[in-house]
C-alpha cells in the first residue's frame, strides 16, 4: 500500500489540476502555474533538507542556473523552449553534485553557511560575463506559445506545461524517497554515525542528495524562466533561497505532499496575501502602511502566525488533526493512537 502512495497522491492532485482551467481566470492559472514551478523546487529542497537533514541557503541559485540555461539555449541558440527544461535540470544537477562533493565535509550550520556562498557567487558570475549572461541588463525570452498549433492562451498553456512537469516530478520524488536510497537519506539525517556503522556512505549520500535537489531546482528554474520571460541577477536574489527554505518549513519538512502547501505559500505570500493584509491594516486609523518595508513586517507576521498554528508545517498540522480525529473515533479503546511516535519517525 505504501508503495502506491506516490502514484495515488499524484492522481488525487490530478483532478483539481485538470479542473482548474475551467474555473479560474487566465491570470490565476498563470499564478497556479508558478505554484507548480515552486512545487518542483520545494520537492528538490525537501529531499535535501527534509529527508537528508542538510540545510541549504542557496537553492535559489540552482533555480537561477536552470533559468539561465533555458534562456541562453532559447535566445542564443534557437532551441525550442520546452526542450531546454531537462537540460536545465541536468546542468543545475551537475553543479549541485560538484558543490555537494566537497561540501559534504561540512555539517550542520557550517554547511548552511557554505551553501550561502552559492547565490552570492552566482550573482557575481552573472555580472562577470555579461556577453554570455546579459549581465545586469538581463535577457528577455519570447512568450511561451502553445505547441502543435493549438490556439491556447499563453498563460493557460504555461499552466498546462508547468503542471505536466510537476506531476511527473512528484511521483518521481516518491520513488526516490521510498526505496533503499530513501532509507539511506533518512538514516543520514537521523544519525550520521549510526548510518556509517550500517555501511551507508554518508558523503556519497549527501552529495547525491545535493545533486538530486539541484536537478529539481534546475527544472523549476527552466520553467520559471519560461513563465517569467525574463532573467537578470535581480530575478534571483538571495531572498529567493530563503523563501524556498521558508516554503518547505511551512509545508512541513520531510513530507512531500506538504510541499503543495509550501508552494502555494511561496507564490501567494508576496504577491497576494501581504498586500491584501496591508491594505486592511491601512484602514486602521493612525497606522501609516506607506513606510518602506511595512510589507515585510506583514510578511513576517503572517509567517509567525502560520508557524504558531502549525509548528511542524501544514503537513504536521494535518497529521495532528488526523490524530485528534482518530482519537475521537476510537477513544473507547485507546486514549491516544500512538503517543510515542514522533514526527520524524513517521517518515
Amino acid at each position, binding site marked *: 500500500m505504501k508503495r502506491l502512495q506516490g502514484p495515488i497522491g499524484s492522481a488525487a492532485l490530478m483532478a483539481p489540476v485538470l479542473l*482548474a482551467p475551467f474555473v479560474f481566470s487566465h491570470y490565476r492559472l498563470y499564478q497556479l502555474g508558478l505554484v507548480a514551478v515552486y512545487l518542483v523546487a520545494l520537492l528538490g529542497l525537501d529531499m535535501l533538507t527534509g529527508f537528508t537533514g542538510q540545510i541549504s541557503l542557496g537553492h535559489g541559485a540552482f533555480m537561477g542556473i536552470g533559468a539561465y540555461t533555458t534562456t541562453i539555449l532559447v535566445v542564443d541558440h534557437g532551441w525550442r523552449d520546452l526542450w531546454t527544461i531537462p537540460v536545465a535540470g541536468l546542468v543545475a544537477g551537475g553543479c549541485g553534485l560538484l558543490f555537494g562533493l566537497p561540501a559534504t565535509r561540512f555539517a550542520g550550520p557550517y554547511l548552511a553557511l557554505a551553501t550561502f556562498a552559492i547565490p552570492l557567487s552566482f550573482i557575481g558570475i552573472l555580472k562577470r560575463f555579461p556577453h554570455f549572461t546579459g549581465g545586469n541588463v538581463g535577457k528577455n525570452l519570447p512568450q511561451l506559445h502553445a505547441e502543435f498549433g493549438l490556439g491556447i492562451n499563453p498563460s493557460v498553456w504555461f499552466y498546462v506545461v508547468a503542471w505536466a512537469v510537476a506531476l511527473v516530478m512528484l511521483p518521481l520524488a516518491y520513488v526516490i524517497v521510498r526505496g533503499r536510497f530513501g532509507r539511506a537519506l533518512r538514516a543520514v539525517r537521523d544519525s550520521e554515525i549510526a548510518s556509517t556503522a550500517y555501511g551507508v556512505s554518508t558523503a556519497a549520500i549527501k552529495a547525491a542528495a545535493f545533486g538530486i535537489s539541484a536537478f529539481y531546482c534546475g527544472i523549476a528554474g527552466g520553467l520559471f524562466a519560461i513563465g517569467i520571460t525574463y532573467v537578470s541577477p535581480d530575478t534571483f*536574489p538571495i531572498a529567493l533561497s530563503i523563501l524556498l527554505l521558508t516554503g518547505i518549513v511551512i509545508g512541513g519538512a520531510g513530507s512531500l505532499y506538504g510541499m503543495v502547501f509550501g508552494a502555494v505559500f511561496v507564490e501567494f505570500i508576496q504577491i497576494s496575501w501581504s498586500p491584501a493584509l496591508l491594505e486592511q491594516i491601512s484602514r486602521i486609523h493612525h497606522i501609516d502602511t506607506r513606510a518602506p518595508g511595512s510589507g515585510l513586517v506583514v510578511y513576517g507576521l503572517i509567517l509567525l502566525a502560520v508557524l504558531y498554528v502549525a509548528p511542524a508545517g501544514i503537513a504536521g498540522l494535518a497529521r495532528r488533526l488526523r490524530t485528534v480525529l482518530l482519537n475521537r473515533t476510537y477513544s473507547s479503546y485507546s486514549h491516544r493512537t500512538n503517543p510515542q511516535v514522533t514526527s520524524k519517525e513517521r517518515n
Partner: protein
Amino acid sequence: MKRTFLPLAAALLISVAVTVTAGAAPTATPGVTARTILLEGTFPLSGPASGYAPIPVAMKAFFSYANAQGGVNHRQIVFKYSDDGFNPAQTVQLTHQFVEQDHAFALVGGLGTAPQTAVRQYLNDNKVPQLFVSTGATTFDRDYTTYPWTLGWQPDYEAEGAIYGKYVVKNFASAKLGVLYQNDDYGNDYLRGLRAGLASHQTQIVDAEPYDLSATTPPAVQVAKLKASGADTFVIFATPTPTIQAYVISTKLGWHPAHIITNSVSATDPFLTIATNAGSDNTNGTLTVNYLLDPSNPIYNKQPGMILFRKLMAKYDPKGNANDPLNMYGFAKAWTTVQVLKAAGTNLTRAGLMKVARSMAFTQKLKNANPFVLPGVDIHTKGNYQFPISQVLLVQYKNNTFQPIGKLINGRGA
C-alpha cells in the same frame, strides 16, 4: 492510501479557496467603462529602491484631484499600484495581473530600468500601453520602433550625463573626475553620456568605480579607491541609498573633493538632508540638474504650479512630505497622463492613446505647459523624436536649497 488522500484533498481545497477571486469580464476596450478608466503600475514600496515609494502616492493624489474636477471626458481615473520590491520576477507577475485579471487600460509610471525591461516585450506583444515609465534609461525613448507601446517621460540619463560632461569641460577644465556608478543600464547610461559630453576631454576621468545595487554592503571600497586615485571631483551616478552612503563614506574617509556632481534622481533635498544627518559634511556645493519645480526653494513659491501643488498635497496626500521633489515628480507625471487621456477623446482606445502620446506638445509657447515643471520646460514628442522631456536646469546645493545656475539647457540639443 487514506493517509495521503485526506491531507491532499484538504491541501487542494484550501489552495482553491485562497485563489478564488473572479476576474472582470473584458469589454470592448479593456479598462474603460462609461464612467471609469483603469490605470495601473508597479513601484518599489519595499526593498533596495523603496526611497521612490512616494511617487505613486503623489500620482494618485493628483488623479483624485482630476476626478474631483470632473475626471477625463466624464470618466473617473482609477489608479492602482502594487509593490514589486524592485524584483523583476514580481513585476512580471503583477503586470500579468494588471493585464489579464484587472484588464487595465494602460500601465502608467512603472518604476525601474530592470523591472520595466522585464515586462516591455510582454506588454508590446499584448498591445498594452507602457506609458511614462519612471526610468530615464535611454532605451525606453530611443527604441520606439521596436517597442511602439512603450514611452519614457523624464530626461534620459545619457543626456543628463552629457550635460555634466559639457559643464566640466567649460568650468572645471583641470578637474580630475572620480566616478561612482551603478553597474547596470542606469549607471552605464550616465557614464556613457558623461564621456560623450567630455568628448576630447575624457582623460579627465581618472577613475570610474562600479557598484551593484544588490550588494549588501555600502560602496566603501569604491569610494576609497576613488579617493586614492587623486580625483578632486566626485561624480555620483547612483540610486538614493548608495548615494547617501557615498556622501557619508567620503566624509569618514576624510575626502573633501572640490566639486561633487550627483545625478538628479538622487540629488534631492530630502536625500541630501539624510546624508547630512548621517554625518556627511560635503553635501554643500553638490551640482545636479532639475526640471521640476523645487518645493524646497522659496523662489518658486509664487509659481501657480507650486501653489496648486501645496494645496493638493494638503488635501489629497496629507501624510506626504510636501517638500519632497518626488511628490512633485508624481504630480507632473500624473498631469501629463491626464492631458493625453483627455486628448485621446471620448472614444478611448489603447492605440488612440499611443497616437496622442507620440505627438504631445505641452509647451510654454502654446500656453498649455505642465504647471509642475520649471517654467520653460516643454513636454513634446513628434515623429522620430520620442524624448518627452529633455530640458534641464543646472542647480547647486547651497545652505540646504538648490540654487539655479544659468538657464535651461537642452540635453538632446534639439
